[in-house]
């Protein structure tokens, strides 16, 4: 009985257990294959949870990988291939959102925050410059505590 379950499971799972890129998908031209891999890593598998099509095991990812290679072989540039996939599936499949429209905010958020931070830090650091202000003396209990620590 147990053996039967194993075999059944094997039979059921076999097609899903397929590895990401299959040997039969690989293009003979290494340069073009490298481009295909690069593009694949930017495209999200439409049905998986956060995997790109290069590492995904889903059937649709395989279809997409083959489609990408088809287009490359047909002579498309990388951007054209990505555009073609986005036209079909929407911008959801793009792992690198395009830096235009509202998404500009996303791309500029980091640099903008850095500038703001530098500005604040600059204002703060100017305020920290040494002046000739008198330093507060320790009060009695602080002095006692300091002595205690220094003795140790």
């Amino acid at each position, binding site marked *: 009985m147990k053996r039967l379950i194993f075999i059944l*499971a094997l039979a059921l799972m076999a097609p899903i257990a397929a590895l990401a890129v299959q040997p039969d998908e690989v293009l003979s031209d290494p340069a073009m294959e490298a481009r295909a891999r690069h593009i694949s890593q930017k495209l999200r598998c439409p049905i998986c*949870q*956060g995997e790109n099509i290069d590492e995904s095991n889903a059937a649709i990812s395989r279809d997409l990988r083959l489609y990408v290679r088809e287009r490359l072989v047909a002579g498309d540039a990388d951007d054209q291939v990505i555009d073609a996939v986005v036209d079909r599936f929407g911008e959801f499949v793009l792992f690198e959102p395009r830096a235009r429209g*509202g998404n500009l905010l996303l791309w500029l958020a980091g640099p903008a925050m*850095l500038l703001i*931070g530098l500005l604040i830090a600059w204002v703060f650091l100017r305020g920290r410059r040494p002046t000739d202000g008198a330093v507060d003396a320790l009060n009695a209990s602080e002095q006692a505590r300091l002595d*205690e620590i220094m003795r140790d």
Partner: protein
Amino acid sequence: MIAEFGHFALILAFMVSLFQMTVPLVGAAKGWLGWMDSARPAALAQFLLVGVSFAALTMAFVTSDFSLKLVYENSHTAKPMLYKISGVWGNHEGSMLLWVLILALFGAAAAVFGDNLPPQLRARVLAVQASIGAAFFAFIIFTSNPFLRLENPPFDGRDLNPLLQDPGLAFHPPFLYLGYVGLSMAFSFAVAALIEGRVDAAWARWVRPWTLAAWMFLTIGIALGSWWAYYELGWGGFWFWDPVENASFMPWLLSAALLHSAIVVEKREALKSWTILLAIMAFGFSMIGTFIVRSGVITSVHSFASDPTRGIFILGILAVFTGGALTLYAVRASSMTAKGVFTPMSREGALVLNNLLLAVSAFVVFIGTIWPLAAEFLWDRKLSVGAPFFNKAFTPFMIALAIALPFGAIMPWKRAVFARAARPLRGAFIFALAVMVLVFAVSTGRSAIAVIGAGLGAWLIAGSVADLLHRVGNSGLSRLFRLPRADWGKAIAHAGVGVTFIGVGLLTAWQLEDIRVAKIGQPFDLGGYDFTLRQVDQVQGPNYLSTLATIDVNRDGASVAVLHPEKRIYPVQAMPTTEAAIDNGIFRDIYVVIGDEQADGSWAVRTYVKPFANWIWAGAILMALGGMVSLSDRRYRVAVGAKRAAVNAVPAE
């Protein structure tokens, strides 16, 4: 019966935490010593009760008590014992119980080791800690009770997700939680200080060890998760910028910043209000992480237990604590007057830069993680933000950090002349340049990543060595070993960052990959190694069926390794996993994965040569080790020793 006992203990712990969050706080406000000190036994009792509750749940998993719904859903009799135990936290309810267990553990530790804390501060810290506990106890008891029974106990369980049945992942969550929850101590100290209206060097000295410990655990937890992804997911990636990874990375970045700004408070009594803000944010992001994982608002490979009510509950906790703390901060921050003065070109100034870069990089990770959510909410657009974005938007900050780090680490306090401060780094600079030239020479035509990664890594490592030597000065090697542990810890941790830089840079740039159909007995070549698929067997494991391949790896006719990549099927969950076979080396890993059988009896095989892969995790281990060495520094024990001397002066009763 045992389960009900655990359930009861959990409710009692909730009650104790309610007591602990109110009575000591009132006592501290009124100056009643007895009320204040009631926090300590309460913290211990709370820990004991959660401990009993956790033990009861563990017992149910170990004995496979399938009358518990949780055990039925996440365990199986055929599962090895290690995974029966790790199954306790391999699910939502159990992991939350682990969360509060660690929370109570930190509270109890503060109660036990808090002898030298002023009683008022101690009472307030423990009360704030208990209030976090109370919120999460309520969360568990009302929305995620692990002790629910099934009316008709089934014969066997549904098993733990096979991907989680792995030694690396068994210990990944506990370390991560020790880190997340450890930051709650920094948070409690920050809120207590805000209530008190007083932050001084002593405060920083109490906060820093807790933050250091939390950061260390977080480092280990993240490294374990990354290592697991590397060998388990079958293509050898080590970081995916998955929302849940980001959720653990943000608190890590912020706690690293906190760690450094607390030094400025401790040594120079400056940056006080910023340090308080960081402490609040670091724990706030820990809770955001919990929210992201538990609520299912962001889909991810990790998200277990997606449930809107739970999400709303955690969002509520997050809003109350972070919002409350920030409000308190807004009211009180102005009373934190800084004392130390310094010029921008000084150690303090360098640490401000460190904080700025770490905080902004955490912000970039944050905005990238929530952007899909924001875009859907604002414009009803469904979009994705993944690795390509983060690699471009995040990496520049790390590069800037790495360039500045050795300068900052060697800079004197208060006031520095750059040219003079940088002089001890000349050797390190030349070394780093040499490494860059060397890497460039051996990798012509490839990406700049290798040159930058290795160059910066070498710069960081050599810079740490230069820093140590600079501290020794002319007084000889014996002085080197008498340097304070904190100096050693700093050098080790910074060198660890460098080691990770080298690993990431060289692995990314130099990895070799081969995907092919391999005929049995027919060798193929990759990166100077010969691979031969010898045989493929079907093997039965304890709770899985395995397709086990044997692959010989040779170099110049000599055997390098015999690798056994596997493909497993776990029938209970009907789920396949790949078990890559790796020959670990200092300078390269050989990584082999077996795929499907082809019609003619040959097999799909993926082979990788991954240069310097282990340096990524070796660097993380060094960082954690540096933290540990620093934690053992004398100055954290000084205050304890002073207290003991005072106690000895009074005769024991």
